[in-house]
């Protein structure tokens, strides 16, 4: 270990730790601990001022401080010891909600495992100031390898590839996320490039599943390229819409009408590629009804889910994406009719006088799956 300068990392926020290291002749350790003697044998090995930080937070802060001080050894590139069991996720799993969480905020991240969205997105991009990108990488990596997210699919939003995204990947893939969100996606080339990196890192770190990609379409150029982006890699499972940048670039209002073309374009591009589409976030945290209404409209337009910027938005989104009783009944009928037809060897089948072909059956099955995931009574329909 070779330290060349004094450096520190972290903060005095609740659940965080501030770690400082500097070159010296002998090792000395100073601790100021808010939890007092309760965990002192666990934090003795590091130099910290901690505010109730978990072990993995202290570890992340220490590693980053060491790196800032000049240390850049092999230790930073070794796969993490596996602390939580995690398996890959199915390509078409439920993704009604995707919750963005700032990647360098230890206080918020302390409880990130309990809110139960379908997807959590640990963010390295817009919520992290440039000077803290390195710290956030370490923290996200430690969160990924230490916290059990249960049934939630766990994603990382990296920075654009030319602006730190590559370094983000090197760090966070060690924590084995399910997928990577690519912000400001504008061309299939970027997606293919990301897929290449993922392939390489999966091999290097021994990740036994295909790491998914969720391109975020947030510019007019991105919307126009959406059909190609959606098909750029087998890893792409979902197109997400980001309205903020889009609105700014187009110079339009953030109204339903002004964004309708972009939304429709993204839904169509995703559907054509056989993948999912997820709507933009709703910026007003206080307005639950507004969120619910917008999510209902997104669902009606064909979206499979919607972004959330606050955990309390999840419930409204899930409520909006829940199948209605009529939809449920229709879906049960379609699936039953299709199974009946299959048993009898019929190719085409009608339900309530309407043609039922493969995509219709797929849609019906998807409704049933969603209903089941929400604990609704579905019966034994497939």
């Amino acid at each position, binding site marked *: 270990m070779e330290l060349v300068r004094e450096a520190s990392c972290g903060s005095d926020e*609740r659940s965080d730790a501030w770690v400082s290291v500097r070159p010296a002749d002998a090792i000395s350790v100073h601790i100021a601990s808010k939890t*007092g003697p*309760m*965990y002192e044998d666990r934090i003795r090995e590091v130099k910290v001022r*901690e505010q109730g930080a978990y072990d993995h937070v202290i570890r992340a802060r220490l590693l980053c401080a060491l790196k800032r001080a000049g240390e850049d050894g092999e230790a930073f590139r070794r796969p993490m010891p596996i602390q939580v069991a995690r398996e890959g996720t199915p390509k078409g799993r439920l993704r009604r909600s995707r919750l963005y969480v700032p990647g360098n905020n230890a206080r*918020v991240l302390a*409880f990130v495992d*309990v809110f139960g969205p379908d997807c959590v997105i640990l963010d390295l991009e817009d919520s992290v100031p440039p000077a803290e990108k390195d710290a956030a990488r370490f923290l996200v990596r430690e969160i990924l390898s230490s916290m059990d997210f249960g049934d939630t699919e766990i994603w990382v939003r990296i920075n654009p590839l030319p602006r730190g995204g590559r370094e983000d990947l090197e760090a966070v893939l060690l924590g084995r996320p399910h997928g990577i969100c690519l912000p400001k996606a504008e061309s299939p080339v970027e997606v293919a490039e990301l897929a290449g990196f993922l392939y390489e890192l999966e091999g290097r770190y021994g990740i036994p599943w295909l790491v998914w990609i969720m391109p975020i379409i947030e510019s007019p150029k991105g919307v126009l390229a959406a059909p190609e982006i959606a098909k750029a890699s087998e890893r792409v499972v979902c197109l997400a819409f980001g309205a903020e940048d889009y609105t700014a670039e187009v110079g339009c209002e953030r109204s339903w009408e002004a964004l309708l073309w972009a939304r429709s374009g993204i839904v169509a591009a995703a559907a054509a590629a056989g993948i999912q589409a997820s709507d933009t976030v709703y910026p007003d945290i206080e307005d639950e009804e507004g969120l619910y209404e917008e999510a209902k409209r997104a669902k009606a337009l064909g979206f499979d889910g919607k972004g959330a910027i606050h*955990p*309390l938005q999840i419930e409204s989104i899930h409520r909006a994406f829940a199948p209605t009783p009529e939809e449920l009944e229709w879906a049960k009928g379609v699936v039953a009719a299709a199974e009946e037809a299959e048993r009898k060897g019929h190719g085409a089948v009608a339900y309530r006088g309407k043609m039922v072909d493969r995509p219709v059956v797929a849609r019906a099955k998807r409704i049933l799956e969603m209903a089941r995931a929400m604990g609704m009574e579905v019966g034994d329909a497939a």
Partner: protein
Amino acid sequence: MPRNAVGREIPEEVGGKPLTPFQGAFATVPQGRKAAPPLKTIRPGEDKVLPSLEEAIRRVGLSDGMTISFHHSFRDGDLLVLRVVEACARMGIKDLRLFPTALFPCHEPLIRYIEEGVVTRIEGSMNGPVGAFVSRGGKLREPAVLRSHGGRWRAIECGEVHIDVAFIAAPTADTYGNANGMWGPNACGPISFSVPDSWYADHVVVVTDNLVPYPAIPAEIEQGYVDYVVTVDRVGDPGGIATGTLRITRSPTQLRIARLAADAVIAAGLVRDGMGFQAGAGGISLAATDFIAKEMARRGVKAAFAIGGVTMYLAEMLKEGLVGAILDGQAFDARAVEFLREHPRHVIITPGFYADYNSRGCATYMLDFAFLGGTEVDLEFNVNVNTHSDGQLLHGIGGHQDVASGAKVTVITIPTIRGRIPTIRESVTTVTTPGEVVDLIVTERGIAVNPRRPDLREDLRRAGLPVRTLEEMRAEAERLVGKAKRPVFGDEIVALIQWRDGTVIDVVRKVVGWE
């Protein structure tokens, strides 16, 4: 050493006084008669107004070893406790027993008077520094005694605590001693905590900075019980009332807990016309109450009453017609004080009306549900309100025991982790409220239902709420934060935690090290 009904070792006596171990929430059958204060009279024309506290202290004959009492309606803005103790110190009086309803961080200067022997015993809640000081052991002549609001009333009424002199901070009073907290430049809301003190103390001194022409109404404290009236420049700082967590929380974790808590009582069918509830002043309780209020408005449901600590949120519910009456023992913000003056169905109650065990009915028994907090809970559903996991005595009981005993459904809201400290323990550091009166424990990880309530379990399960065991949630939190060391306790008892009936539910021992 014998163990009480929650498995805690309770010595048979402390300092020569026998202790009765806790037997169960409603096991005690009271015997005998109430204590009686001395008979007194005065003649027409006699003047009760004295020029100074010192003069009052001389007139009532306050001397070494006596017990003096106070209310805590100014909370962290109290000025009277220190003024009286300082005056006693100057006058050479020592060995006092302090019997406040509660002490707050503002009372930290008391530590000096404890060290100097002016105050040698404390019976009352200690929030903050004084509690931390007492926890270190060897400071008081006898262990501190902590009681609930109802328990304090009972202790006075049955003679367990004899008050020599009651000092009552009164934002408004007349020369005859009628007093209230509703009016005056430093109005603080109800001062009814002092009502039993006025009834049973040998001497009663009303202290005010707002002397009004006779009669001061309403007379929360009545002339017939008051010996002297003293005027001071300032009786208390109402700015100290609204400290701490008296706003709806914005923390996502706490909001999730609040949402689950509200959903649980909705699922239990308790949100209905004619209901009664208690809302605490903690951020989670307020948020849960807010969720309930929205549900009530949506369904057109009206509550018959709510019990305070009263905040502006509760006052708004009364104004909007969601609540039929507020029974108020304590104001938690300035808006609550204003509202008390404006609204005829916002009324003051005494701790006896609210919570007395030895009574033929108290308001908490009429509650359908209540949201309460705690520092720790354990696998038996016991709740700790008094100590932290490091063994320090930092909080009073308040109405916790009284409310939990009374409400049909008692909901404890608590995050599984505070800072890094896990709150679900195998066994709580101190038992304040026994699991037998706790129905639901709600955390950000789910809702634990007391096995005594299979009916609730079924309601919650049917509503699709996340019913979990405490053990599951404990293990999950421990996986994140690791196993915390526990303090090692010595023999010295620094405080007794009374159950509301006067039995001892737990003792707080001095911490001597760490395991």
